[in-house]
Protein backbone atom coordinates (compact mmCIF):
# COMPACT_ATOMS: atom_id res chain seq x y z
CA UNK A 1 0.00 0.00 0.00
CA UNK A 2 1.52 3.27 -1.05
CA UNK A 3 1.75 6.29 1.20
CA UNK A 4 -0.70 8.21 -0.91
CA UNK A 5 -3.47 5.64 -0.80
CA UNK A 6 -2.91 5.03 2.92
CA UNK A 7 -3.20 8.72 3.57
CA UNK A 8 -6.32 8.82 1.47
CA UNK A 9 -7.75 5.86 3.41
CA UNK A 10 -7.09 7.55 6.74
CA UNK A 11 -8.49 10.87 5.57
CA UNK A 12 -11.65 9.34 4.14
CA UNK A 13 -12.05 7.19 7.26
CA UNK A 14 -11.83 10.28 9.44
CA UNK A 15 -14.22 12.15 7.17
CA UNK A 16 -16.73 9.31 7.28
CA UNK A 17 -16.52 9.13 11.08
CA UNK A 18 -16.93 12.90 11.38
CA UNK A 19 -19.86 12.81 8.97
CA UNK A 20 -21.57 9.95 10.79
CA UNK A 21 -21.16 11.52 14.23
CA UNK A 22 -22.28 14.86 12.79
CA UNK A 23 -25.43 13.22 11.48
CA UNK A 24 -26.03 11.47 14.79
CA UNK A 25 -25.60 14.77 16.63
CA UNK A 26 -27.95 16.52 14.20
CA UNK A 27 -30.53 13.78 14.73
CA UNK A 28 -30.27 14.11 18.52
CA UNK A 29 -30.55 17.91 18.36
CA UNK A 30 -33.51 17.61 15.98
CA UNK A 31 -35.22 15.20 18.39
CA UNK A 32 -34.55 17.51 21.32
CA UNK A 33 -35.99 20.55 19.58
CA UNK A 34 -39.02 18.67 18.22
CA UNK A 35 -38.01 18.63 14.57
CA UNK A 36 -38.70 14.94 13.93
CA UNK A 37 -42.27 14.06 12.89
CA UNK A 38 -43.93 10.86 14.15
CA UNK A 39 -43.94 9.47 10.59
CA UNK A 40 -40.17 9.86 10.12
CA UNK A 41 -39.72 6.16 9.33
CA UNK A 42 -39.87 4.44 5.96
CA UNK A 43 -38.68 5.50 2.53
CA UNK A 44 -40.46 8.87 2.65
CA UNK A 45 -39.25 9.66 6.17
CA UNK A 46 -36.37 11.78 4.88
CA UNK A 47 -38.69 14.08 2.94
CA UNK A 48 -41.26 14.24 5.74
CA UNK A 49 -38.56 15.11 8.26
CA UNK A 50 -36.90 17.77 6.10
CA UNK A 51 -40.26 19.42 5.44
CA UNK A 52 -41.46 19.30 9.04
CA UNK A 53 -38.12 20.41 10.51
CA UNK A 54 -37.70 23.32 8.09
CA UNK A 55 -41.29 24.45 8.65
CA UNK A 56 -40.87 24.28 12.42
CA UNK A 57 -37.72 26.41 12.15
CA UNK A 58 -39.22 28.91 9.69
CA UNK A 59 -42.93 29.04 10.49
CA UNK A 60 -43.47 28.24 14.16
CA UNK A 61 -45.19 31.58 14.82
CA UNK A 62 -46.14 32.72 11.34
CA UNK A 63 -49.82 33.38 10.67
CA UNK A 64 -51.85 31.93 7.83
CA UNK A 65 -52.90 34.61 5.37
CA UNK A 66 -56.23 36.19 6.27
CA UNK A 67 -58.49 37.60 3.59
CA UNK A 68 -61.08 40.38 3.48
CA UNK A 69 -64.70 39.24 3.89
CA UNK A 70 -65.28 40.18 0.25
CA UNK A 71 -63.13 37.27 -0.88
CA UNK A 72 -65.23 34.65 0.94
CA UNK A 73 -66.17 31.99 -1.64
CA UNK A 74 -69.90 32.16 -2.39
CA UNK A 75 -70.18 28.37 -2.62
CA UNK A 76 -67.71 26.58 -0.34
CA UNK A 77 -67.25 23.03 -1.55
CA UNK A 78 -67.80 20.39 1.16
CA UNK A 79 -65.76 17.39 0.14
CA UNK A 80 -67.00 13.83 -0.17
CA UNK A 81 -68.37 12.62 3.17
CA UNK A 82 -68.49 9.04 4.38
CA UNK A 83 -72.06 7.89 5.18
CA UNK A 84 -73.09 9.32 8.55
CA UNK A 85 -73.26 6.78 11.37
CA UNK A 86 -76.49 6.12 13.31
CA UNK A 87 -74.81 7.58 16.40
CA UNK A 88 -74.13 10.81 14.51
CA UNK A 89 -77.64 10.93 13.08
CA UNK A 90 -79.01 10.60 16.61
CA UNK A 91 -76.99 13.66 17.70
CA UNK A 92 -78.06 15.51 14.57
CA UNK A 93 -81.74 14.81 15.25
CA UNK A 94 -81.31 16.17 18.77
CA UNK A 95 -79.64 19.35 17.50
CA UNK A 96 -76.26 18.27 18.93
CA UNK A 97 -77.29 19.25 22.49
CA UNK A 98 -75.76 16.02 23.81
CA UNK A 99 -72.51 16.34 21.80
CA UNK A 100 -69.50 16.23 24.10
CA UNK A 101 -65.87 17.06 23.57
CA UNK A 102 -63.86 15.14 26.16
CA UNK A 103 -60.28 16.12 26.99
CA UNK A 104 -57.99 13.62 28.69
CA UNK A 105 -54.39 12.43 28.86
CA UNK A 106 -51.61 14.61 30.23
CA UNK A 107 -53.84 17.29 31.71
CA UNK A 108 -54.30 18.51 35.27
CA UNK A 109 -58.08 18.35 35.05
CA UNK A 110 -59.72 16.00 32.53
CA UNK A 111 -62.96 17.58 31.38
CA UNK A 112 -65.79 17.36 28.92
CA UNK A 113 -67.46 20.23 27.09
CA UNK A 114 -70.77 20.64 25.32
CA UNK A 115 -71.07 22.78 22.21
CA UNK A 116 -72.85 25.36 24.38
CA UNK A 117 -69.89 25.33 26.80
CA UNK A 118 -67.50 25.99 23.93
CA UNK A 119 -69.70 28.80 22.62
CA UNK A 120 -69.71 30.42 26.06
CA UNK A 121 -65.99 31.15 25.76
CA UNK A 122 -64.80 34.23 23.84
CA UNK A 123 -65.38 33.41 20.19
CA UNK A 124 -62.75 34.14 17.56
CA UNK A 125 -62.92 34.11 13.79
CA UNK A 126 -60.66 34.33 10.80
CA UNK A 127 -61.25 34.45 7.05
CA UNK A 128 -58.84 31.87 5.72
CA UNK A 129 -58.46 29.42 2.91
CA UNK A 130 -59.27 25.74 3.14
CA UNK A 131 -57.11 23.79 0.73
CA UNK A 132 -57.46 20.17 -0.26
CA UNK A 133 -54.44 18.00 -1.01
CA UNK A 134 -56.12 17.34 -4.39
CA UNK A 135 -55.54 20.95 -5.41
CA UNK A 136 -58.83 22.82 -4.96
CA UNK A 137 -59.58 25.48 -2.37
CA UNK A 138 -62.09 27.98 -1.04
CA UNK A 139 -62.13 30.86 1.42
CA UNK A 140 -64.53 31.03 4.36
CA UNK A 141 -64.95 32.75 7.69
CA UNK A 142 -64.29 30.22 10.43
CA UNK A 143 -65.70 30.84 13.93
CA UNK A 144 -64.68 28.99 17.04
CA UNK A 145 -62.72 28.92 20.23
CA UNK A 146 -58.93 28.76 19.99
CA UNK A 147 -57.76 25.29 20.95
CA UNK A 148 -55.25 26.93 23.30
CA UNK A 149 -58.16 28.34 25.36
CA UNK A 150 -59.58 24.87 26.02
CA UNK A 151 -56.11 23.46 26.70
CA UNK A 152 -55.51 26.19 29.27
CA UNK A 153 -58.80 25.34 30.99
CA UNK A 154 -57.77 21.72 31.51
CA UNK A 155 -54.13 22.54 32.30
CA UNK A 156 -51.75 20.80 29.94
CA UNK A 157 -48.80 19.20 31.72
CA UNK A 158 -45.34 20.51 30.75
CA UNK A 159 -44.20 17.24 29.16
CA UNK A 160 -47.04 17.32 26.61
CA UNK A 161 -45.89 17.20 22.98
CA UNK A 162 -48.92 16.25 20.91
CA UNK A 163 -52.68 16.70 20.94
CA UNK A 164 -54.54 13.72 19.50
CA UNK A 165 -58.00 14.54 18.16
CA UNK A 166 -60.65 11.98 17.38
CA UNK A 167 -63.63 12.25 15.07
CA UNK A 168 -67.00 10.53 15.45
CA UNK A 169 -66.39 9.09 11.97
CA UNK A 170 -65.09 5.53 12.41
CA UNK A 171 -61.28 5.16 12.47
CA UNK A 172 -60.71 8.86 11.98
CA UNK A 173 -58.17 10.53 14.22
CA UNK A 174 -55.15 12.75 13.87
CA UNK A 175 -52.65 14.69 15.96
CA UNK A 176 -50.74 17.97 15.99
CA UNK A 177 -47.67 19.18 17.86
CA UNK A 178 -47.84 21.84 20.57
CA UNK A 179 -46.69 24.56 18.14
CA UNK A 180 -49.84 24.03 16.10
CA UNK A 181 -52.03 23.31 19.14
CA UNK A 182 -51.12 26.63 20.77
CA UNK A 183 -51.11 28.59 17.50
CA UNK A 184 -53.61 31.48 17.71
CA UNK A 185 -55.37 30.48 14.47
CA UNK A 186 -55.97 26.86 15.50
CA UNK A 187 -59.67 26.65 16.36
CA UNK A 188 -62.18 24.21 17.65
CA UNK A 189 -64.52 25.50 15.00
CA UNK A 190 -68.32 25.57 15.41
CA UNK A 191 -69.33 28.33 12.98
CA UNK A 192 -68.82 29.28 9.36
CA UNK A 193 -69.65 32.47 7.45
CA UNK A 194 -71.71 33.88 10.31
CA UNK A 195 -73.77 30.71 10.85
CA UNK A 196 -73.57 27.35 12.54
CA UNK A 197 -70.96 25.08 11.00
CA UNK A 198 -72.96 22.98 8.49
CA UNK A 199 -72.75 19.21 8.90
CA UNK A 200 -71.13 18.67 5.46
CA UNK A 201 -68.34 21.01 6.61
CA UNK A 202 -67.86 19.16 9.89
CA UNK A 203 -70.56 20.56 12.18
CA UNK A 204 -71.07 20.67 15.05
CA UNK A 205 -67.31 20.76 15.73
CA UNK A 206 -64.30 20.71 13.45
CA UNK A 207 -60.57 21.08 13.99
CA UNK A 208 -59.49 24.11 11.98
CA UNK A 209 -55.77 24.51 11.15
CA UNK A 210 -55.42 27.11 8.41
CA UNK A 211 -51.70 26.34 7.97
CA UNK A 212 -52.37 22.72 7.10
CA UNK A 213 -54.17 20.84 4.32
CA UNK A 214 -57.89 19.99 4.50
CA UNK A 215 -57.59 16.36 5.56
CA UNK A 216 -55.81 17.46 8.74
CA UNK A 217 -58.88 19.63 9.58
CA UNK A 218 -60.94 16.72 10.90
CA UNK A 219 -64.72 16.95 11.07
CA UNK A 220 -67.00 15.87 13.98
CA UNK A 221 -64.47 16.17 16.81
CA UNK A 222 -65.44 14.35 20.02
CA UNK A 223 -62.24 13.82 21.94
CA UNK A 224 -58.82 15.34 22.62
CA UNK A 225 -55.99 13.41 24.24
CA UNK A 226 -52.82 15.15 25.36
CA UNK A 227 -49.69 13.00 25.13
CA UNK A 228 -45.91 13.18 25.12
CA UNK A 229 -45.50 10.47 22.47
CA UNK A 230 -47.47 9.05 19.56
CA UNK A 231 -46.36 5.52 20.45
CA UNK A 232 -49.40 3.54 21.47
CA UNK A 233 -51.74 5.50 19.22
CA UNK A 234 -52.46 3.15 16.33
CA UNK A 235 -49.21 2.32 14.58
CA UNK A 236 -47.46 5.26 16.20
CA UNK A 237 -47.00 7.40 13.10
CA UNK A 238 -49.39 10.06 14.35
CA UNK A 239 -52.65 9.76 12.41
CA UNK A 240 -55.12 7.45 10.72
CA UNK A 241 -54.24 9.27 7.47
CA UNK A 242 -50.58 8.34 7.94
CA UNK A 243 -51.57 4.69 8.30
CA UNK A 244 -53.40 5.05 4.97
CA UNK A 245 -50.25 6.43 3.32
CA UNK A 246 -50.85 10.17 3.78
CA UNK A 247 -48.32 12.46 5.47
CA UNK A 248 -48.76 13.46 9.11
CA UNK A 249 -47.53 17.04 8.63
CA UNK A 250 -49.38 18.83 5.86
CA UNK A 251 -48.08 22.39 5.80
CA UNK A 252 -46.99 21.53 2.26
Amino acid sequence: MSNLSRRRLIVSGLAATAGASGLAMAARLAQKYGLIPPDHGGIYGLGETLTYASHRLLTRHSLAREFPRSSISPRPFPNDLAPLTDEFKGHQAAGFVNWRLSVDGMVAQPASFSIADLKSYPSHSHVTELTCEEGWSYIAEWIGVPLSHVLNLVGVLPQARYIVYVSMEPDTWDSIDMADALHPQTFLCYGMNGNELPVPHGGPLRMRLPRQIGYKNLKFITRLTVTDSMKGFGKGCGSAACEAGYAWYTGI
Partner: protein
Amino acid sequence: MGTLGRAQLPAEASLPSRVSNALVTKPAPRHSALVRVTHWITTLCFFALLVTGIEIVISHPRFYWGETGNVLTSPLFQLPIPSSRRLVPTRYGYVLPDQNGWSRALHFEAAWIVVLTGLLYVISGLLTRHFRKDLVPSRADLSWRTLLTSFVKPLRWQRPSAAEAFSYNGVQRLTYLFVLFVLFPLVIWSGLAMSLGFISAFPWSVALLGGRQSARTIHFFVSLALVLFLFVHVGMVCLAGFWSRTDAMITGRIGTGKEHP
Protein backbone atom coordinates in the same frame (compact mmCIF):
# COMPACT_ATOMS: atom_id res chain seq x y z
CA MET B 1 -13.28 15.62 -4.49
CA GLY B 2 -9.66 14.59 -5.06
CA THR B 3 -10.48 12.84 -8.34
CA LEU B 4 -12.05 15.86 -9.95
CA GLY B 5 -10.46 16.59 -13.28
CA ARG B 6 -8.26 13.49 -13.35
CA ALA B 7 -10.24 11.26 -15.73
CA GLN B 8 -8.52 9.96 -18.84
CA LEU B 9 -8.93 11.75 -22.09
CA PRO B 10 -6.56 11.51 -25.03
CA ALA B 11 -5.32 14.91 -26.05
CA GLU B 12 -6.48 15.42 -29.59
CA ALA B 13 -5.25 17.88 -32.12
CA SER B 14 -8.77 18.65 -33.31
CA LEU B 15 -9.92 20.04 -30.00
CA PRO B 16 -11.33 23.54 -30.09
CA SER B 17 -8.87 26.10 -28.81
CA ARG B 18 -11.11 26.88 -25.84
CA VAL B 19 -10.13 23.62 -24.14
CA SER B 20 -7.07 22.36 -25.93
CA ASN B 21 -4.42 24.12 -23.85
CA ALA B 22 -5.70 22.65 -20.65
CA LEU B 23 -6.01 19.22 -22.18
CA VAL B 24 -2.48 18.91 -23.37
CA THR B 25 -1.08 19.28 -19.90
CA LYS B 26 -3.89 17.80 -17.81
CA PRO B 27 -6.59 15.79 -19.58
CA ALA B 28 -10.00 16.92 -18.32
CA PRO B 29 -13.18 14.91 -18.61
CA ARG B 30 -15.97 16.19 -20.87
CA HIS B 31 -18.11 16.66 -17.76
CA SER B 32 -16.69 17.04 -14.26
CA ALA B 33 -17.52 14.35 -11.70
CA LEU B 34 -19.80 16.75 -9.89
CA VAL B 35 -21.71 17.63 -13.05
CA ARG B 36 -22.12 13.94 -13.87
CA VAL B 37 -23.34 12.93 -10.43
CA THR B 38 -25.74 15.87 -10.07
CA HIS B 39 -27.02 15.26 -13.62
CA TRP B 40 -28.13 11.71 -12.83
CA ILE B 41 -29.55 12.53 -9.41
CA THR B 42 -31.55 15.28 -11.13
CA THR B 43 -32.68 12.81 -13.79
CA LEU B 44 -33.97 10.35 -11.18
CA CYS B 45 -35.72 13.10 -9.22
CA PHE B 46 -37.19 14.57 -12.39
CA PHE B 47 -38.87 11.27 -13.25
CA ALA B 48 -40.12 10.84 -9.69
CA LEU B 49 -41.51 14.40 -9.74
CA LEU B 50 -43.08 13.89 -13.16
CA VAL B 51 -44.86 10.62 -12.35
CA THR B 52 -46.08 11.79 -8.95
CA GLY B 53 -47.03 15.20 -10.35
CA ILE B 54 -49.22 13.52 -12.95
CA GLU B 55 -50.82 11.37 -10.23
CA ILE B 56 -51.59 14.46 -8.14
CA VAL B 57 -53.06 16.29 -11.14
CA ILE B 58 -55.32 13.28 -11.83
CA SER B 59 -57.01 13.85 -8.47
CA HIS B 60 -58.11 17.29 -9.71
CA PRO B 61 -57.40 17.85 -13.41
CA ARG B 62 -58.94 21.32 -13.34
CA PHE B 63 -56.88 24.53 -13.28
CA TYR B 64 -57.87 27.98 -12.08
CA TRP B 65 -56.49 31.48 -11.91
CA GLY B 66 -56.42 33.60 -8.76
CA GLU B 67 -56.58 32.57 -5.11
CA THR B 68 -59.25 29.88 -5.00
CA GLY B 69 -60.97 27.35 -7.25
CA ASN B 70 -62.98 24.15 -6.85
CA VAL B 71 -65.61 22.11 -8.70
CA LEU B 72 -68.25 24.73 -7.84
CA THR B 73 -66.31 27.46 -9.66
CA SER B 74 -65.51 27.61 -13.35
CA PRO B 75 -62.02 26.48 -14.27
CA LEU B 76 -59.52 28.22 -16.53
CA PHE B 77 -59.32 24.85 -18.30
CA GLN B 78 -59.75 21.18 -17.52
CA LEU B 79 -57.54 18.40 -18.86
CA PRO B 80 -59.56 15.82 -20.84
CA ILE B 81 -58.50 12.95 -18.58
CA PRO B 82 -60.33 10.81 -16.02
CA SER B 83 -59.98 11.67 -12.33
CA SER B 84 -59.24 9.72 -9.17
CA ARG B 85 -62.00 11.59 -7.31
CA ARG B 86 -65.71 10.84 -7.56
CA LEU B 87 -66.85 14.45 -7.27
CA VAL B 88 -64.71 15.85 -10.09
CA PRO B 89 -66.93 16.05 -13.17
CA THR B 90 -65.25 14.36 -16.15
CA ARG B 91 -66.52 12.89 -19.41
CA TYR B 92 -65.52 9.43 -18.21
CA GLY B 93 -67.85 7.00 -16.48
CA TYR B 94 -65.23 5.67 -14.08
CA VAL B 95 -63.01 6.87 -11.23
CA LEU B 96 -59.31 5.99 -11.09
CA PRO B 97 -57.74 4.65 -7.88
CA ASP B 98 -56.38 7.22 -5.42
CA GLN B 99 -52.57 7.45 -5.56
CA ASN B 100 -52.09 10.78 -3.77
CA GLY B 101 -50.64 9.54 -0.47
CA TRP B 102 -47.35 8.13 -1.76
CA SER B 103 -47.36 10.54 -4.72
CA ARG B 104 -47.32 13.60 -2.48
CA ALA B 105 -44.70 12.05 -0.17
CA LEU B 106 -42.39 11.10 -3.05
CA HIS B 107 -43.03 14.41 -4.85
CA PHE B 108 -41.83 16.43 -1.86
CA GLU B 109 -38.97 14.07 -1.02
CA ALA B 110 -37.70 14.18 -4.63
CA ALA B 111 -38.13 17.96 -4.57
CA TRP B 112 -35.93 18.20 -1.47
CA ILE B 113 -33.25 15.99 -3.01
CA VAL B 114 -33.25 17.81 -6.36
CA VAL B 115 -33.20 21.27 -4.78
CA LEU B 116 -30.27 20.36 -2.51
CA THR B 117 -28.53 18.76 -5.50
CA GLY B 118 -29.21 21.87 -7.56
CA LEU B 119 -27.78 24.09 -4.83
CA LEU B 120 -24.60 22.00 -4.74
CA TYR B 121 -24.40 22.22 -8.53
CA VAL B 122 -24.90 25.98 -8.64
CA ILE B 123 -22.41 26.68 -5.84
CA SER B 124 -19.76 24.45 -7.42
CA GLY B 125 -20.57 25.86 -10.85
CA LEU B 126 -19.82 29.34 -9.57
CA LEU B 127 -16.66 28.27 -7.72
CA THR B 128 -15.23 26.26 -10.63
CA ARG B 129 -16.35 28.84 -13.20
CA HIS B 130 -18.36 26.07 -14.91
CA PHE B 131 -21.09 28.50 -15.95
CA ARG B 132 -18.64 31.10 -17.21
CA LYS B 133 -16.52 28.57 -19.12
CA ASP B 134 -19.09 26.11 -20.40
CA LEU B 135 -22.47 27.82 -20.49
CA VAL B 136 -22.21 31.58 -20.93
CA PRO B 137 -22.07 32.09 -24.72
CA SER B 138 -19.27 34.07 -26.26
CA ARG B 139 -19.96 37.03 -28.53
CA ALA B 140 -19.18 34.84 -31.53
CA ASP B 141 -21.66 32.19 -30.32
CA LEU B 142 -24.35 34.85 -30.30
CA SER B 143 -24.14 36.01 -33.91
CA TRP B 144 -27.44 35.41 -35.67
CA ARG B 145 -25.84 33.35 -38.39
CA THR B 146 -24.15 30.98 -35.91
CA LEU B 147 -27.26 30.68 -33.79
CA LEU B 148 -29.42 30.02 -36.83
CA THR B 149 -27.06 27.35 -38.12
CA SER B 150 -26.95 25.61 -34.74
CA PHE B 151 -30.73 25.78 -34.60
CA VAL B 152 -31.47 24.59 -38.13
CA LYS B 153 -28.91 21.77 -38.31
CA PRO B 154 -30.65 19.48 -35.84
CA LEU B 155 -34.01 20.31 -37.41
CA ARG B 156 -32.65 18.80 -40.63
CA TRP B 157 -31.46 15.89 -38.45
CA GLN B 158 -27.81 16.63 -39.24
CA ARG B 159 -25.34 15.25 -36.73
CA PRO B 160 -23.04 17.72 -34.98
CA SER B 161 -19.41 17.74 -36.07
CA ALA B 162 -16.78 15.90 -34.04
CA ALA B 163 -15.49 19.16 -32.57
CA GLU B 164 -18.90 19.90 -31.11
CA ALA B 165 -18.55 16.89 -28.82
CA PHE B 166 -16.24 18.95 -26.58
CA SER B 167 -18.24 22.10 -26.13
CA TYR B 168 -21.74 23.51 -26.42
CA ASN B 169 -22.91 25.77 -29.24
CA GLY B 170 -24.75 29.05 -28.64
CA VAL B 171 -28.25 27.57 -28.84
CA GLN B 172 -27.33 24.85 -26.34
CA ARG B 173 -25.73 27.38 -24.00
CA LEU B 174 -28.76 29.66 -24.05
CA THR B 175 -31.14 26.73 -23.60
CA TYR B 176 -29.24 25.29 -20.63
CA LEU B 177 -28.99 28.72 -19.01
CA PHE B 178 -32.73 29.27 -19.53
CA VAL B 179 -33.60 25.89 -17.99
CA LEU B 180 -31.15 26.34 -15.10
CA PHE B 181 -31.86 29.93 -14.18
CA VAL B 182 -35.43 30.54 -15.37
CA LEU B 183 -37.43 27.29 -15.50
CA PHE B 184 -35.95 25.55 -12.43
CA PRO B 185 -36.29 28.61 -10.15
CA LEU B 186 -39.83 29.20 -11.43
CA VAL B 187 -40.93 25.62 -10.85
CA ILE B 188 -39.45 25.68 -7.33
CA TRP B 189 -41.01 29.06 -6.53
CA SER B 190 -44.47 28.12 -7.83
CA GLY B 191 -44.24 24.84 -5.93
CA LEU B 192 -43.33 26.56 -2.66
CA ALA B 193 -46.10 29.12 -3.24
CA MET B 194 -48.61 26.26 -2.84
CA SER B 195 -47.25 25.25 0.57
CA LEU B 196 -49.52 26.60 3.32
CA GLY B 197 -46.69 26.61 5.86
CA PHE B 198 -44.23 28.32 3.53
CA ILE B 199 -46.65 31.07 2.47
CA SER B 200 -47.65 31.77 6.06
CA ALA B 201 -44.02 32.87 6.57
CA PHE B 202 -43.50 34.35 3.09
CA PRO B 203 -46.92 35.56 1.86
CA TRP B 204 -45.36 37.71 -0.88
CA SER B 205 -44.18 34.55 -2.62
CA VAL B 206 -47.75 33.64 -3.53
CA ALA B 207 -49.04 37.21 -3.88
CA LEU B 208 -46.46 37.91 -6.61
CA LEU B 209 -47.77 34.94 -8.60
CA GLY B 210 -51.39 36.10 -8.32
CA GLY B 211 -52.71 33.61 -5.74
CA ARG B 212 -52.40 29.94 -4.84
CA GLN B 213 -54.43 28.62 -7.78
CA SER B 214 -52.36 30.80 -10.14
CA ALA B 215 -49.22 29.32 -8.60
CA ARG B 216 -50.60 25.81 -9.24
CA THR B 217 -51.38 26.67 -12.87
CA ILE B 218 -47.92 28.22 -13.36
CA HIS B 219 -46.35 25.14 -11.75
CA PHE B 220 -48.20 22.99 -14.30
CA PHE B 221 -47.08 25.02 -17.33
CA VAL B 222 -43.45 25.33 -16.22
CA SER B 223 -43.42 21.56 -15.66
CA LEU B 224 -44.76 21.14 -19.21
CA ALA B 225 -41.91 23.34 -20.48
CA LEU B 226 -39.41 21.18 -18.57
CA VAL B 227 -40.89 18.03 -20.13
CA LEU B 228 -40.58 19.66 -23.55
CA PHE B 229 -36.94 20.44 -22.75
CA LEU B 230 -36.43 16.79 -21.73
CA PHE B 231 -37.79 15.56 -25.09
CA VAL B 232 -35.60 17.94 -27.10
CA HIS B 233 -32.59 17.17 -24.88
CA VAL B 234 -32.93 13.40 -25.34
CA GLY B 235 -33.66 13.90 -29.04
CA MET B 236 -30.44 15.89 -29.46
CA VAL B 237 -28.48 13.28 -27.49
CA CYS B 238 -29.81 10.61 -29.87
CA LEU B 239 -28.89 12.75 -32.88
CA ALA B 240 -25.36 13.38 -31.62
CA GLY B 241 -24.87 9.72 -30.72
CA PHE B 242 -26.74 8.33 -27.76
CA TRP B 243 -24.02 6.06 -26.34
CA SER B 244 -21.06 8.41 -26.69
CA ARG B 245 -22.97 11.32 -25.12
CA THR B 246 -24.41 9.13 -22.38
CA ASP B 247 -20.99 7.64 -21.75
CA ALA B 248 -19.56 11.15 -21.49
CA MET B 249 -22.15 11.95 -18.83
CA ILE B 250 -21.47 8.71 -16.91
CA THR B 251 -17.68 8.22 -17.15
CA GLY B 252 -16.65 11.65 -18.39
CA ARG B 253 -14.94 10.14 -21.44
CA ILE B 254 -15.74 11.10 -24.98
CA GLY B 255 -16.27 8.33 -27.52
CA THR B 256 -13.44 7.74 -29.98
CA GLY B 257 -15.39 8.01 -33.18
CA LYS B 258 -17.00 4.57 -33.23
CA GLU B 259 -20.09 6.57 -32.59
CA HIS B 260 -22.58 5.80 -35.28
CA PRO B 261 -23.27 2.10 -35.60
